[in-house]
């Protein structure tokens, strides 16, 4: 029903651009579009189920946006970013990274009789606790000898900012207008080498 209504409003609104003979009423499906090579369709947002209109080029259809991730999660609740609030408290059911695979690798190597540096989970629960806070799972001896001082330098660099971070989270946003005179072709058609930056 929703898709039909979306198609109907769009076709009816476009029909005002098409000259009509007096006393003629056209059904939405009978409107003939001037040939521009574009094709109108309705697609459903795979995450929300809300439909939207798509104008696509039938000669060069784009496929990258059609294959949206169809996992349906609950909307994120940013209270989860507070210090003592867990995913369970807010009913978070979205994706998450797991450190389990790191421990599986360590256990595999340990079982194979390796004398390499990675050790199993039973041997560094304390390091796991610090790792949970700092995101570092490393060779205990190496970390103590080398990583300790580097971590201290990195931590001091942002100390002034993060030491005052409240236990609840901080979110901010800003925008800045760029003064320039250009048009779509100069920005996106002529300069095809201007690819998005990837860090």
């Amino acid at each position: 029903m929703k898709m039909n209504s979306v198609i109907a409003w769009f076709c009816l609104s476009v029909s005002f651009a098409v000259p009509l003979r007096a006393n003629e009423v056209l059904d939405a499906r009978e409107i003939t579009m001037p040939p521009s090579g574009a094709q109108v369709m309705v697609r459903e947002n795979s995450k929300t189920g809300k439909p939207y209109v798509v104008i696509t080029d039938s000669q060069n259809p784009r496929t990258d946006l059609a294959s949206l991730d169809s996992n349906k999660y609950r909307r994120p609740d940013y209270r989860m970013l507070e210090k003592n609030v867990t995913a369970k408290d807010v009913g978070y059911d979205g994706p998450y990274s797991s450190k389990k695979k790191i421990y599986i690798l360590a256990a595999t190597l340990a079982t194979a009789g390796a004398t390499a540096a990675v050790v199993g989970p039973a041997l560094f629960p304390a390091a796991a606790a610090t790792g949970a806070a700092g995101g570092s799972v490393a060779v205990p001896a190496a970390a103590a000898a080398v990583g300790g001082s580097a971590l201290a330098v990195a931590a001091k660099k942002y100390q002034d900012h993060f030491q005052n971070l409240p236990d609840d989270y901080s979110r901010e946003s800003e925008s800045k207008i760029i003064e320039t005179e250009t048009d779509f072709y100069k920005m996106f058609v002529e300069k095809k080498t201007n690819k998005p930056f990837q860090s």
Partner: protein
Amino acid sequence: MNHRQQAERSFFYPLCFLPFVLCSCVAIYGWNIHAPGLLSDEFARDIPQVSKRVALYIPEGQKEFISKDKGTRWSDPQTYYIGEAFVPMLIESFQSGFTEFVLLEALPNPEIMSQYAIDAVVVSEIKDFKNRKTLPAQGLDVYTETAVFNRDLKLIRRFETRGTSEAKGTFAKKGGLEVNLNAAIEGSLRETVLQVQDALK
């Protein structure tokens, strides 16, 4: 078994695993952060809907934008799949911000704009991503650049946005990294939609 055989065996197994580990270091040892890719309830509550017909054109490659910025030299490898969440959230933000939203997958031209009576076309893309990480906290910054064009594809407004989310203990909690990334993306989209609405007044 003599000592030499014991020594050979102790080095054999690590060498077997070493190429595998080196080739897929991040997959085996590291963090792959995939945000939910959905706006929170706050967005629809805070951003009013404007009665305009607006088209959105998303340049090629946006969905594949990733970052391996791990914040500090000694951190675990991290891969942030920013584009994967940005694209659906961008579409959803425009669906929420405008009563008549059209996704333009064809390259915009004045004929399409006049045929479908589209007031403006917006082009938005990710420009940068920063991971500011310390032991207790993490701050993520998502930078985008957006341009708004009229029916003749002349520039109305061009602007940059930054969305930032900072929180403590994101690595410690399930979904913390993912929600932090989602919040940063949503922040940049909030500014994007507000700027576009202001440009089309």
